[in-house]
């Protein structure tokens, strides 16, 4: 293997992991703040270092210290091995799926074109489904190994929900796959370049409006977030990680935040044109109404990187808004929504996409 490629891969991996972890950490704070705004409170603003508060930005650090120093309790008669392993199983796959997300346009370093994707593999999106589906094991093992009837019931509830919505999640994306004709995310982004009538960007959102609309609820349900947070409503009917404490309980919650980042990234790549900025070419902006702004090549690349992160941030904010707006579904409503509304609509979407593709040739 070429040394430059090898080093580039290492750098990409470490940057991706730290950026994702950093975003998720920040997200714990953003979620508290946004919930405070929506409930007319001030929110977490007391954590300080030597009296410096900066609107509570140190809160994630305080949370982390609290979780690390708490006792790691294993319930008596629980299966100790599996109880210890379950948080890791639910944490690892969520980090692994980031390997196929292209974080930016390819750049040239020392004569090599380096893609901003850790693993440029042919099966891109299938890889996401393969490892995304493994998160179920974390929930199931956590619920079973705790040796508690309530957590076992919650684990069964959680896995039933995740299996049901995985079907919708997959079917809602197949329409997009049919249009792009590929599973590879870099190619998907390239397929979204170009404009209709010279000025409307050909983004997936406009080609697959129904697919995008179905993807969002399915993805939020897969994340087990409000309004689909039945598996983990700790305060009322007990969730599958009730018997966890300290850092291990924190790992379950942190995995959920990373999942939000991932869902937002996936939505941005498939439906929002990835790292593309409308009207930005490799030498600068050239607007359809005439007028050109010439930019340095590095500035263009930076804008494209920033564009993806801006899109991800918007989607994350949307998820948080949904979280604090809607009440929780009942279990039968949840199943009805998944199987009787989302799934048939996804199939209809497939049918329409197929017909349109055949008609357009």
């Amino acid at each position: 293997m070429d040394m430059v490629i090898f080093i580039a891969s290492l750098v990409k991996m470490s940057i991706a992991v730290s950026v994702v972890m950093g975003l998720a950490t920040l997200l714990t704070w953003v979620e508290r703040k946004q919930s405070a705004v929506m409930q007319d409170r001030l929110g977490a603003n007391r954590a300080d270092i030597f009296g410096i508060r900066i609107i509570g930005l140190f809160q994630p650090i305080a949370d982390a210290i609290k979780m690390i120093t708490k006792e790691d309790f294993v319930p008596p008669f629980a299966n100790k091995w599996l109880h210890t392993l379950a948080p890791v199983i639910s944490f690892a796959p969520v980090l692994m799926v980031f390997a196929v997300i292209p974080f930016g346009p390819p750049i040239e370093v020392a004569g090599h074109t380096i893609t901003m994707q850790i693993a440029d593999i042919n099966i891109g999106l299938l890889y996401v489904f393969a490892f995304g589906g493994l998160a179920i094991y974390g929930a199931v093992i956590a619920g079973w190994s705790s040796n508690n009837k309530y957590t076992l019931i919650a684990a069964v509830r959680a896995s039933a929900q995740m299996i049901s919505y995985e079907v919708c999640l997959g079917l809602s994306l197949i329409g997009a796959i049919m249009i792009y004709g590929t599973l590879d995310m870099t190619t998907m982004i390239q397929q979204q370049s170009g404009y209709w009538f010279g000025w409307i960007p050909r983004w997936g959102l406009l080609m697959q409006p129904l697919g995008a609309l179905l993807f969002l609820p399915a993805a939020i349900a897969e994340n087990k977030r409000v309004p689909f947070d039945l598996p983990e409503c700790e305060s009322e009917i007990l969730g599958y990680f009730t018997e966890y404490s300290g850092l291990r309980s924190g790992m379950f919650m942190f995995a959920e935040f990373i999942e939000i980042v991932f869902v937002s990234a996936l939505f941005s790549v498939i439906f929002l044109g990835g790292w593309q900025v409308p009207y930005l070419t490799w030498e600068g902006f050239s607007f359809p109404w005439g007028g050109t702004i010439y930019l340095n090549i590095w500035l263009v690349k930076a804008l494209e990187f920033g564009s993806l992160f801006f899109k991800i941030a918007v989607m994350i904010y949307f998820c948080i808004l949904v979280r604090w707006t809607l009440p929780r579904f009942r279990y039968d409503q949840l199943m009805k929504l998944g199987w009787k509304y989302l799934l048939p609509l996804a199939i209809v979407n497939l049918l329409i996409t197929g017909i349109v593709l055949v008609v357009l040739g």
Partner: protein
Amino acid sequence: MELTLFIITALVALGSAIMVITRKSPIISVLFLVLTFFCLAVFYVMLGAQFIAAMQIIVYAGAIMVLFLFVLMLLNLRGDQNWEVSGPLRKWLGWIAAGGVLLVVITAIQSVTGFNTELDPAVGTVSSIGDALFNRFLLPFEIVSVMLLGAIIGVVAMVKRKPSTEDEEEGGEA
């Protein structure tokens, strides 16, 4: 490097496969079976069959094993239960089954003519498999699809409760 990876994965696969049949708790067995499937997926990737590897994880590790786990958990089998099966008939049946599998494996190994290190990278891609399924083998593919659909409808028809014969159904399900 590839050889080292192969040896490590093969050892993990064999070790976890042995654990599947020696553990007393069925849930632990299922989890080790998932690990075995994972190692198989790694082999597929090394052979250039990325699509098959992804399917291995999605279908077997992700879907079928979750259902196994589901059922086992609800049955609530304890690890300390005695699972020793006695009787000479069962023992002989076991030997015969194991011998049959061994025979199949030996025949398969004998047909291998040598290790082909040059792999065609286009063989395992999504498009080549899609091409094979929907052009070359379209008819068998469709027949299998219809058979699976029939099986699904059959399951739904069997599970569906009839209000008049409820007691009989419950007896039949167990």
